[in-house]
């Protein structure tokens, strides 16, 4: 009995700790310094053209990073999981490097490597999708591996082969749908990491390229009210993104339930 209450209190404290800052943020945005409820800070935010451009910049950077992750990480991890367990261990170990190394170090490495010679890309945003994909790599690979391990992927691939499918047919028609939820959830993590990335963006572009986090910092320093509205928008964007991706991942489930339901009805 006592343990049950203790448990509830702890959960309550945890939720308060998570939710209070957000509640404060929303309250501050809507009421602000004037004391009256107002949406003025949102109006200011949306009428600022540099907000729209930073949002677009962040979206295309994140989308490119996701695309890169899917294309670069999926096939080798899949292949190693099925056919080369020792190589897989190496890949897993290497994939943790960006997780362990601070972003500042990664950024400096990038600046160093790309600041001269034929790859003079420092100061442009074209490096960023690669850097973001690298940052997201440990998360993408773990999530995808997790799906592989739970999906009986190897036996299913072998089944497709014995049924007459070529490797390519079996990969596209069976493995991709089978592993889709892993790819989607991994992409989701790369996307959120990319949307919020600050350090590498700042250091490699020297602040010349406006993304959502950079915009947030600048506006917040200049005008705290607008900055907090910005934060709320970011929050909502993140929530909407999570919901959209989760619903995509569970669409297969819903289809199955629909079949069951129609069967029960008839």
């Amino acid at each position, binding site marked *: 009995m006592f343990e049950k209450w203790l448990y509830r209190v702890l959960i309550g404290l945890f939720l308060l700790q998570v939710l209070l800052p957000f509640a404060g943020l929303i309250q501050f945005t809507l009421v602000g310094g004037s004391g009256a409820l107002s949406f003025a800070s949102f109006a200011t935010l949306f009428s600022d053209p540099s907000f729209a451009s930073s949002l677009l910049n962040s979206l295309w950077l994140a989308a490119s990073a996701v695309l890169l992750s899917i294309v670069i990480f999926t096939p080798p991890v899949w292949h190693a999981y099925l056919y080369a367990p020792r190589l897989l261990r190496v890949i897993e170990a290497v994939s943790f490097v960006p997780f362990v190394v601070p972003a500042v170090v990664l950024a400096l490495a990038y600046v160093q490597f790309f600041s001269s010679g034929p790859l003079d890309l420092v100061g442009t945003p074209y490096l960023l999708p690669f850097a973001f994909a690298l940052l997201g790599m440990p998360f993408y690979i773990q999530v995808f591996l997790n799906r592989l391990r739970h*999906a*009986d992927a190897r*036996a*299913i691939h*072998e*089944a*497709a*082969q*014995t*049924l*007459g*499918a*070529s490797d390519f*047919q079996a990969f596209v028609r*069976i493995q991709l*749908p*089978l592993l889709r939820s892993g790819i989607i959830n991994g992409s989701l993590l790369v996307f959120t990491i990319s949307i919020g990335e600050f350090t590498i963006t700042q250091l490699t572009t020297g602040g010349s390229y406006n993304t959502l986090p950079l915009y947030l910092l600048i506006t917040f320093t200049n005008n705290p009210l607008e900055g907090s509205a910005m934060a709320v928008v970011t929050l909502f964007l993140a929530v909407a993104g999570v919901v959209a991706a989760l619903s995509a991942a569970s669409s*297969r489930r819903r289809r*199955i339930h629909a*079949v*069951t339901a129609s*069967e029960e009805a008839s």
Partner: protein
Amino acid sequence: MLSVRNLTKQFRDHTAVEDFSAEVAAGEFIALLGPSGSGKTTVLRMVAGLLQPTSGAVYLGDRNVTKTRPKDRQIGVVFQSYALFPHLTAGDNIAFSLKVRRWSKQDTARRVDELLEITQLSHRKDYYPEQMSGGERQRVALARALAFNPPLLLLDEPLSALDAKVRISLREMLKDVQRRLHVTAVMVTHDQEEALSLADRVIVMQSGQIEQIGTPEEVYHSPQTAFVSTFVGVATPIPVTAAGDGSHDVRWGDYAFPWLLTIAQKRELADGGTHIYIRPEAVKLLSAPTARHEPKGEVLFSMFLGNAVRVRVRMSDEIVLTADVMGGKAMYRPGQSVFVQLRDDRVDPKDDPRDR
């Protein structure tokens, strides 16, 4: 139909399969029987082309397919975990091999319906694997493996994940389907009852090697190695001594039983073997000794099996016999004294002048 020649598979320092050779005739049902880790799955995977043998060859008819990719071997495989495609319905799972072979829509639909009917799954056509029971998934896996009319079907412990009742009914269906479609089948199992009841011939394996190939009767009644006699069926080894007069008569204490032995066992004893193996149904329990002075034992416990009562009888400190008393109403209480006769139904009574 299928000819496997001197297959060997080495995993680094470990030999999983060694010098495995077998010939399978068209239409035959072969069971590969052996304990866990004996290399059954490894053999099956090499036949299917999913694993390259270290040495040896696989022939389908007179075609050497050792280097042929699995997709070009035209072999149906039923996997232990079923490996159904979870995002496809039962019907689409079955249709997959026909779609990659570019069958026409009508032909595909007709073949799928035919297989659903054979496996009694017509009402599950639009179900996804996760909506089906284990037995239904198993049947989808079977139908899917048979869809493209493969001449050879491989099954890796197809029934092991099912409960006893479903297992028996699926066993019958499997045999029926195999006969009806005239497909040659090789099934891996570690369940000896399954192997004996389904197969035309049984290959008993241990530690990557073949112990014996034979019909279920041969494997059960004429085991050629000590391993086969204990692994196939229940058998109690009892230490015996040869009579020493060249007759290979066997003595257990002062109890002689010349009629019990198979030729192989006699040969083994002549080669210096020291045990014979007694099956539960070869033990007869008497409440009083006859003129032959049967050895006395003590009942340890009895167990009701439905059609028989299984009794464990301690004969001495080392020897505990297992006896199956068929259809009897007799009661056996722990501690009770019984007298043991050993009989062997395969031996012509003429060979045993003293009894029967």
